[in-house]
């Protein structure tokens, strides 16, 4: 049996190994992904993001417990930053998820950000595909809030929960980071903190200011997108726009969490009813093909250009004999893999 077949057969060991292969971009990864791809598309992808320590892992733990009570299976992908100095990472999200231990309907995987942001988004998307093919109903992706990386990851989620903690949402920091724009559901966690009410009010006020309907859809469709989707208009009308709920939870006691899960289900239904699900899917595919094309063509081209030739060009540019654009034209004309 191939590794992909074992994954489809329900082997958790094979699933873990397939994720490693994909994450490491091992030689076997393209074959594994290709074999699994036709089995993807079942899971609901739920992104959970927010500043460090807001309670994302604790909330994922509770969400997963509730989803299990509803008979759904859950995979968790918990992403933590790699140290830029050492290349190592401490992945500690499992500490908050011990209640999920011993449940064969749950699979938890920790992942370090490793290389560049774009690379992270791609690795995450590929690991999510493996989990999706393995048949989980929900895939919950936890990422630490730091700006562009969650925007990239949110593009792969169907529903994005942004977690705030009391005392943190009362300034414009959240808006600056673009975090509010990616939220489908805003959660103020640590509702046992008396300041939670103030934070909820501040976030509601910000949403009223920042959401005249269409900014939301545009941010989800991604900035890189150049292809128009068959003339479909991505902007939802006033009538069918999703209203981002601001909710409170106590991720230690679980209070408020079932209501969040209900909103996740509502949001999924909304995406289906409005056609937004299909639009986001198309946007995601376009982005992915776009990125894969760039990677592939770039790699093929660089393979063909001899190092000496590159060095010569760099030297000529340094002597101001050629502009960089001219050098590129010469190199592409001589070595392009496309004829």
């Amino acid at each position, binding site marked *: 049996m191939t590794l992909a077949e074992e994954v489809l057969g329900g082997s958790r060991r094979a699933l873990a190994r397939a994720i490693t292969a994909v994450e*490491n*971009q091992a030689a076997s990864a393209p074959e594994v992904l290709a074999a699994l791809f036709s089995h993807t598309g079942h899971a609901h992808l739920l992104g959970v993001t927010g500043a460090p320590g807001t309670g994302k892992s604790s909330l994922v733990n509770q969400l997963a417990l509730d989803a299990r009570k509803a008979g759904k299976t859950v995979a968790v992908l918990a992403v933590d930053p790699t140290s830029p100095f050492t290349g190592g990472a401490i992945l500690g999200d499992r*500490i908050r998820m011990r209640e999920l231990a011993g449940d064969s309907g749950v699979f938890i995987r920790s992942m370090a950000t490793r290389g560049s942001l774009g690379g992270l988004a791609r690795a995450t998307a590929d690991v999510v595909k493996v989990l999706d093919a393995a048949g989980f109903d929900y895939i919950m992706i936890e990422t630490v809030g730091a700006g562009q990386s969650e925007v990239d990851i949110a593009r792969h989620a169907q529903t994005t929960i942004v977690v705030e903690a009391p005392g943190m949402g009362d300034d414009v920091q959240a808006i600056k980071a673009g975090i509010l724009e990616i939220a489908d559901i805003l959660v103020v966690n640590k509702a046992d903190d008396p300041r939670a009410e103030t934070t909820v009010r501040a976030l509601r006020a910000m949403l009223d200011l920042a959401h005249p309907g269409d900014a939301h859809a545009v941010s989800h469709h991604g900035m890189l997108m150049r292809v128009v989707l068959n003339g479909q208009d991505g902007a939802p009308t006033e009538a069918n726009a999703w209203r981002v709920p601001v909710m409170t939870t106590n991720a230690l006691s679980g209070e408020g969490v079932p209501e969040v899960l209900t909103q996740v289900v509502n949001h999924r239904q909304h995406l289906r009813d409005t056609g937004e699900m299909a639009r986001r899917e198309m946007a995601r595919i376009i982005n992915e093909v776009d990125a894969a094309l760039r990677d592939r063509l770039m790699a093929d081209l660089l393979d063909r250009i001899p190092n000496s030739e590159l060095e010569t060009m760099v030297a000529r540019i340094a002597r101001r004999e050629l502009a960089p654009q001219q050098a590129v034209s010469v190199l592409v004309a001589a070595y392009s893999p496309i004829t």
Partner: protein
Amino acid sequence: MSERKIRVLVAKPGLDGHDRGAKVIARALRDAGMEVIYTGLRQTPDMIIEAALQEDVDVIGLSILSGAHMALAPVIMEKVHAAGLDDVMVILGGIIPDEDIPILKEAGVSEVFGPGSNTNHIVKVIQDSIRARE
């Protein structure tokens, strides 16, 4: 473009409530470029095996200060084998009397480190062992 990182599960089985030693090790391994999955206090053998399997780690590092190593380590090793994780290296840190070490190694523990162990040494032992396997 394959990027291979050593993944280590650092776990604290047993009931004692100190994880300072485990955290020191976790940081040292991180600083050596490894990815450390840290699971916190009071892990049962089953929780450790489950996490090691899901995280597809190369190494399980157990920290046992309670003196319960002779009760815990053989049980964990048995479950490691039962789960088919024989290629995972298991190391043990704690206050371990010399006479227990051969028994632990017999049970499948690769290395035992005492409380004063130099973290650089632990890093090197792991790196050498993983490299030798590839």
